[in-house]
């Protein structure tokens, strides 16, 4: 089963990379097909993780990183159909980054869901954050691309507007959950503080986005927001000297 998990992760990663390469070769149809195939593999990976963990597989960083392609593919379809944005390859690139991260994490096959995590808020909270962080990664990649092609900055803004409600839900649903589980909706835990900081940075971006006087702020704010995402998601969890009420996510 362990080999199967690694094989599926590598297979999904190759398909995501294939999607990016196909887009670079101007073969948009192939790019979409490869990304859709990656989604199928990610579903199999999710099922395998669930069987191994005997619980919804959101118990560690590898589980969460391996879940990224599962939400990025529907997001790519949504952006293309309802927002008119063809960002499949960008979402595939973000998924590939997450899968590389998943491969670097140790495979903790068994996972016992501790009592605090046995809540109806658990899955929606984690999934909302995965969607949000994945889309913010895409926004950051588009921001970097906008240094060469200006129009990518507007696309990044569109992706942020799609992503922010997920981040908002993740942040405040976590507070609602904490109110039931920890007896208080806010404890100034380091993960909470960084999540709030990340949210505030994207709020600043949304406030200045429409004003030409602040045009030069957009790129720095989007990159700063993504840096905060990385710290919130990875650094706070992986730095061994940090004590957090969210330490079960390590």
């Amino acid at each position, binding site marked *: 089963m362990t080999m199967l998990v690694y094989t599926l992760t590598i297979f999904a990663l190759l398909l995501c990379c294939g999607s990016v390469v196909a887009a670079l070769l101007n073969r948009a149809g192939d790019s979409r097909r490869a990304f859709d195939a990656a989604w199928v593999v990610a579903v199999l990976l999710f099922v395998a993780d669930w069987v191994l963990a005997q619980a919804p597989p959101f118990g560690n960083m590898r589980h969460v990183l391996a879940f990224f392609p599962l939400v990025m593919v529907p997001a790519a379809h949504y952006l293309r159909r*309802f927002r008119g944005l063809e960002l499949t390859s960008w979402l595939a690139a973000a998924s590939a980054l997450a899968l590389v991260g998943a491969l670097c994490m140790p495979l903790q096959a*068994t996972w*016992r*869901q*501790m*009592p*605090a995590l*046995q*809540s109806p808020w658990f899955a929606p909270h984690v999934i909302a954050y995965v969607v949000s962080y994945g889309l913010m990664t895409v926004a950051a990649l588009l921001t970097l691309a906008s240094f060469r092609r200006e129009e990518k900055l507007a696309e990044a803004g569109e992706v942020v*507007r*799609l992503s*922010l*409600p997920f981040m*908002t*839900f993740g942040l*405040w*649903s976590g*507070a*609602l*959950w904490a*109110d*039931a*589980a*920890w*007896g*208080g*909706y*806010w404890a*100034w835990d*380091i993960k909470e*503080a*960084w999540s*709030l*900081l990340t949210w*505030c*940075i994207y*709020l*600043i971006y949304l*406030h*200045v986005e429409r*004003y030409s*006087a602040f045009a030069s702020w957009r790129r720095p704010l989007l990159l700063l927001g993504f840096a905060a995402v990385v*710290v919130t998601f990875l*650094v*706070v969890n992986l*730095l061994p*000297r*940090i004590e957090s009420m969210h330490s079960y996510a390590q």
Partner: protein
Amino acid sequence: MTTLLKAGLMALGAACVLLLAGAFPLLGAPEVYRSGAVLLLGAISVLLCLWGGWRLATGLRGQLICGLVFLFFTITGLNMLFLYGAKALEYAAIGGAMWAGFVGMGCVALTGVVFMAVFGFLCYRVMNKRILWLAGAHWAVALLGIGAFVDAAYEVRVPVTLPADGKTELTELFLDDGRHLPLGFRLRVDGFTVQHYDDATYTIYSFENGRPGAAQPVERRGDTLHLGAESWPVSLLKSAPGMPHPFLMLPGTPTRVLMQQPGTVRDYCARLVAFTDHRGRPETHTAELRVNSPFACKDWRFSLSSYREQNGQVEVLMQARRAPGRFAALCGMVGIIICTAAWCWWRKEEVA
């Protein structure tokens, strides 16, 4: 660009700086969050949000207020559906006489659906402009801030340890500053249960001349325990008074004891009994307190934090909390979630 927006940006920037000061992974100073600077910034932010929401809804303020009231009732309906629907399902699963409860709870849940449908439709019709949702998001932040301020000033949060002996009663809380705070009712823990995952481990402890020797881990295969050529059915292990876990005394010398170490904790639950009075008549409330299911009585909420065993007696660790701003803060959070989503995902500018 308006002065209001500039002020809002400055407040958000200041919030980021303060958050960074406290949350820098290794050298941060979390004390900053409880400092006067954060309280002042919070007050400024609340005022800016109230003013910002008011200005954004210029000409549509009546619509905004009605829309937010309708939104509140819609969420109330949703809440009724979930709370009473879950209770109805729980009663249906028990069956028997509980079917009457299932019908009652189910009817309340259906009332919630009607609430949702009626007020959701009204909200949808009234909040028919994107800018109204943006204004609503600002007021929701203000509501959250006001609730948080009330809590910062008046919240009482006390850790409570109560033995699960069915006798010891909690009648008052002891604050850090030495004051006693009467609860206004009596609280007792009548029972405590712990469930474990099926990942128990087994060890054989040897005793020579009454002194403990080496410990040997035992492998479990199905329903049998194996150590070398020896094997024992798991069912032979029994509990006994004074022994913390199931065990089996093995025959022969030296004396050997096969002990089961419990698996990972899956869940724990304390059975609470609260003695209150309603207009002079005594009332008894019983409830199961779990980690994600706090118990509320009068103004107090009790959350289950942990438990410990001392001298064969289980002590339940809880947190008692009285937070007058909690309801406003939670409403603000839900409002932020809904209004932000509606504003960000609104596709056409002015058509509902």
